């Protein structure tokens, strides 16, 4: 894992001092709310329905045990004993006092963490693959690139007041576990003639106008990625729309200019940028890479797993995936217990996972965009002990990628932008489909719920997506089918008129019944939908 040096540490500490000063100016009235709002947002502090909300960055979803323990401590000390893991692999605290925010940032800085640029019209937390560094199908660990870009994007002088927020994702595997093509810019590391570089995709996103990003370059060498991204951002900063916040994302620019014209302008700017010496030397990426060099795995470990406990065996089959090192496994921890709140974890659960990471996972853990956690390096021999401890803490649900592994934004229970509540719907679905055999029978089925058109719940990318809307003051839910955030990325199509909360649960049941009736050998829900199309589903729902 990356560790701060004195430079990194001094920068986050300066940030704490700066924010303390800004909060003080706000509390004494030197700053109006209009002036303070963009400043606090750029440090992840929102004013939500019930209180201030603080979003803490978890860069590329990677944490140490010590960092995770601090997140639990903050939940206990400054919040109401829990936190919410988000689809951007960050954590949010819902009950923060403005006066406490600088102290929380100081605590975070003590464990090499921050809330820098977790909101605002700037470059946000760089996201990546939760299996980075441990999956067998990657060409390189994408996290050194993500860390290089975290540093480059932090307090970037030119790109801090962009037309709109800007999200960058870096992956390096064929399987896209991070919804790379639904980001403003997606980088996929590839190998060419023995060298690693990036395929670049631009103009993806969700929100009001969902788009899957087109490729704009097939290879950027690693020692030019910074100048290439500067070119992408400069063209966006110049031409991105500022007259309408719903048309301000880069996806609209790429769409309106056309991919070819956007590419042409980026190439023109890149030709200039590459002469300016903006790229760190290769030694800098090497320095960062050294931090991510694989831990010292033990050798000679057994791959055997004692499956005599059936509940454990079920969990292993569902939550544990192959690690590249013999004798090790990747453990997925579900934050989707039956009837629970997707992504929420109590301080005790957070601290338990911190302890498990330290004891059993070489002091490392990950957060996924599906709002789950991962212990990336667990010896197979330790799986049973890990499972027992998770089970005691209510964290041993076996539902990875199944219908109850639901992504849901906080919705109208917490969020001031929301039009409808997402969580109660997720809870009802979780109860309706609770039976293990039924979930297993349905197989991979990604349900994603957003409480408003901003799509934090990724509903466009759900095999089954639900969007909450406000219909004359009453919550109403639109259903969509056929979305995907994976390497076969696509945007879901709306089925038709919306439903009440109970109505949409019933409609989803009809959709799954039809899938079971129509599917062919080996087809996931998404495959069947793509083969037979919307019509039969519409008939089943509205018939």
């Amino acid at each position, binding site marked *: 894992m990356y560790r701060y040096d004195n430079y990194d540490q001094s920068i986050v500490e300066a940030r704490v001092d700066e924010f303390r000063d800004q909060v003080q100016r*706000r*509390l004494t*009235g030197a700053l109006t709310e209009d002036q303070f709002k963009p400043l606090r947002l750029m440090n992840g502090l929102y004013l939500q329905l*019930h209180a201030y909300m603080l979003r803490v960055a978890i860069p590329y979803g990677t944490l140490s045990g010590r960092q995770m323990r601090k997140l639990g401590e903050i939940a206990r000390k400054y919040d109401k004993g829990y936190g919410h893991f988000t689809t951007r692999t960050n954590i949010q605290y819902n009950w923060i006092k*403005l*006066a406490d925010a600088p102290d929380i940032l100081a605590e975070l800085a003590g464990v090499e963490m921050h809330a820098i640029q977790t909101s605002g019209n700037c470059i946000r937390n760089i996201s990546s693959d939760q299996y980075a560094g441990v999956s067998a199908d990657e060409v390189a660990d994408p996290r050194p690139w993500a860390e290089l870009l975290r540093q480059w994007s932090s307090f970037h002088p030119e790109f801090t007041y962009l037309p709109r927020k800007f999200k960058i994702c870096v992956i390096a595997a064929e399987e896209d576990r991070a919804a790379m093509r639904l980001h403003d810019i997606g980088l996929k590391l590839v190998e060419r003639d023995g060298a690693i570089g990036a395929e670049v995709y631009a103009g993806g996103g969700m929100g009001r106008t969902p788009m899957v990003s087109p490729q704009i370059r097939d290879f950027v060498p690693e020692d030019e990625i910074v100048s290439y991204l500067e070119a992408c951002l400069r063209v966006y900063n110049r031409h991105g729309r500022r007259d309408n916040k719903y048309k301000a994302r880069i996806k609209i620019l790429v769409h309106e200019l056309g991919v070819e014209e956007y590419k042409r302008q980026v190439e023109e700017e890149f030709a200039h940028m590459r002469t300016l010496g903006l790229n760190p030397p290769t030694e800098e990426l090497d320095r960062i890479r050294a931090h991510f060099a694989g831990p010292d795995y033990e050798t000679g470990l057994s791959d055997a797993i004692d499956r005599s406990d059936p509940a454990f065996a079920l969990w292993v089959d569902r939550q544990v995936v192959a690690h590249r090192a013999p004798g090790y496994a990747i453990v997925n921890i579900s934050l989707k217990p039956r009837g629970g709140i997707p992504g929420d974890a109590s301080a005790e659960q957070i601290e338990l996972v911190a302890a498990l990471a330290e004891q059993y996972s070489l002091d490392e853990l990950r957060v996924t965009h599906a709002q789950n956690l991962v212990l990336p390096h667990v010896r197979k021999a330790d799986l049973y002990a890990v499972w027992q401890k998770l089970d005691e803490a209510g964290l041993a649900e076996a539902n990875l990628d199944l219908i109850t592994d639901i992504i849901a934004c906080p919705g109208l229970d917490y969020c001031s932008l929301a039009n409808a*509540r997402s969580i109660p719907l997720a809870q009802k679905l979780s109860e309706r489909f609770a039976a293990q055999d039924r979930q297993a029978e349905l197989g991979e089925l990604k349900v994603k719920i957003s409480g408003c058109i901003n799509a934090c719940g990724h509903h466009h990318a759900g095999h089954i997506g639900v969007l909450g809307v406000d219909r004359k*003051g009453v919550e109403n839910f639109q259903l969509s089918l056929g979305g995907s955030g994976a390497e076969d990325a696509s945007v879901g199509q709306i089925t038709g008129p919306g439903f009440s909360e109970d109505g949409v649960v019933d409609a989803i049941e009809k959709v799954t019944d039809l899938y079971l009736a129509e599917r062919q050998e080996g087809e996931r829900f998404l495959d069947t939908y793509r083969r037979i199309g919307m019509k039969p589903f519409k008939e089943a729902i509205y018939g």
Partner: protein
Amino acid sequence: MKILTGNDLVTGDVVWWAGDGWSRLVGDAVDVGERGDELARAEEAALRVVAPYVIDATVTDEGVRPAHIKDRIRALGPTVRPDLTLKPNDADAGNWVI
């Protein structure tokens, strides 16, 4: 009736204008008539509230009821965490927001 709401500047708590100050209980909210915007500006300038706004509400048997579900959720707390609402011992409190 028109009532005035916002959040406490320092704590972020949801607050309602109660005539002589701010209350955390929507039941204390008073009709501000046409004075809402003026009050909001004065209270915001005095650093007692952030993001104040005027909403419609009615008086029912159960007390003051904001017209929009969003403000009813603000008045109660998150419906998915009854323990953290202002009525932690009322299992049916969440139905009030619908």
